């Protein structure tokens, strides 16, 4: 019965529903967009009513919000933290900076394309995205999870070599020094 395709599908549907309604956000403000996370999570916009909640360490977290531009130094930490998170895990890119570099497109210290280094499930545009936009983006993420399409972690594993190569291009020493990394 367990191997029955239909029952498996039903279980997965329920699991995806639960995943979509319980999303623990990693406490990592990587850029300026983090300033709009606190209004989103607190009394005015109250993301907790949709099941969003803070998580202190990557082991407990489900989603990492890349809140804006990523400097090279932060990318290394972000990658490490992302790899320490436990699947299924999601990445949401905030603002133009994660999409194409935004106004920092010519800065020597910020990356331009987040999706070369991490699998991004949802992008939220704006500079910076307002709490309403954040909530809309997170709802989109919920929808994707419910549909079972938020498989960024799997994609990351499949294309690990490619991602690693891209990461190594900007952080040659760091990636080599890190201990055995997770999925």
């Amino acid at each position, binding site marked *: 019965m367990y191997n029955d395709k239909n029952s498996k599908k039903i279980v997965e549907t329920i699991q995806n529903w639960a995943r979509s309604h319980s999303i623990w956000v990693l406490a990592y403000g*990587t850029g300026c967009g*983090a*300033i709009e996370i606190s209004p989103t999570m607190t009394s*005015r916009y109250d993301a907790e009513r949709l099941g969003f909640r803070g998580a202190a360490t990557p082991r407990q977290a489900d989603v990492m919000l890349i809140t804006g531009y990523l*400097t090279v130094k932060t990318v290394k930490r972000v990658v490490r933290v992302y790899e320490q998170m436990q699947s299924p895990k999601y990445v949401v890119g905030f603002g133009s900076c994660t999409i194409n570099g935004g106004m*920092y497109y*010519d800065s020597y210290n910020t990356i331009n394309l987040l999706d070369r280094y991490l699998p991004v499930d949802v992008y939220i545009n704006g500079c910076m995205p*307002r709490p309403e936009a954040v909530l809309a983006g997170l709802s989109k993420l919920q929808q994707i999870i419910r549909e079972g399409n938020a498989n960024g972690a799997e994609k990351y594993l499949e294309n690990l070599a490619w991602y690693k190569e891209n990461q190594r291009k900007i952080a040659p020493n760091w990636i080599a020094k890190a201990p055995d990394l997770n999925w």
Partner: protein
Amino acid sequence: MREKATTIYLGPQHPGITGNMMVRLKVIGDTIVSAQTEVGYLHRAFEKLQERRNWLQGFTLMCRFCVPESDPMENVYARSVEAIDGREVPERGKYIRVMVLELARIATQLMWYAGQNGSLGLYTMGQWSIGDRDYILDLFEELTGGRVYHMYQWPGGVRRDLPEGFTDKVLRTLDYLEKRLKDYDDLMFANSIFQKRTQGVGIVPKENIIEHGVVGPVLRGAGIRSDIRIDEPYEVYDKLDFEIPTQEGSDIWARALVRRAEVHQSIRIIRQVIDQMPSGEYFNKFPNPLKWIVPAGDAYVRVESGRGEVGFYAVSDGTIHPRRMHLRGAAYVHAITLLESILPGQNIADVSAIMNSLGTCAPEIER
């Protein structure tokens, strides 16, 4: 040889850190023996980018120096350009600027209310004050179109006039805030646990004040009456009547009281500004921005932000691009040498509270 002391990384991914930065703590027991601030996680090289952009493009970039408090950054940029260019600001523009600056100060202090109490585990306060801060952001939104980054004060004035009925809304918001501040006092300052956690903790020794260049609420919390708004009055602060609150003690508690009093003073200032607001032009027009040449020269202007002195050094070599832009934030000295010098001997439990009370703002340090 492995160290005896345990290394604890406070940040960058840590709920207790203010922004994206890191403090490397070496602890023995739960006492800190040494602390080292590491920054650079947010370095976007604004000043370098500015050298590739023209003078008007600057003010969209400059407000992003410090995320929680962007208006003082716009103000120093605008004023430094005005100082080099010899550009005048109409009286109404100055009043509007003061209003914006003081609203920003209130917003910052409300953010600080949340951070300070969040670091001590009183999350209710954070929920309330950030929710209330949003009313100020709504005002900003109506005035400037942006919630966080306003890009409102530019060389020669402000970008837009006050909308219809805006001052009434401001006054209503201030009335509401005054009512709420009483609740905050009950929840936070009257709380004996809050007092126990903050009194005598994170003391900035008076003899270290000069060598560390301490500014802002931290300085006033040590009993020194120093504020750029009276030391070097800019805009129209010399026409306004307000007090500079000071406290003795130099600990988190003293700084908290200073900030609390500052919110009240800001409300008082905004009321005066609205009373005295002259009519007329709110900005002086400037040339085609693509061909705008600022004469050669340099200027250093300062502004009192919610966290202390923010200075801005601008150099022009007489082209359409600035030669050099350089910002000095309050956190630049607070979060590095000062923090490193006062953390040893403190408890791990207090690090986050101390950082919040020093007004640490990571993006301002590395820019």
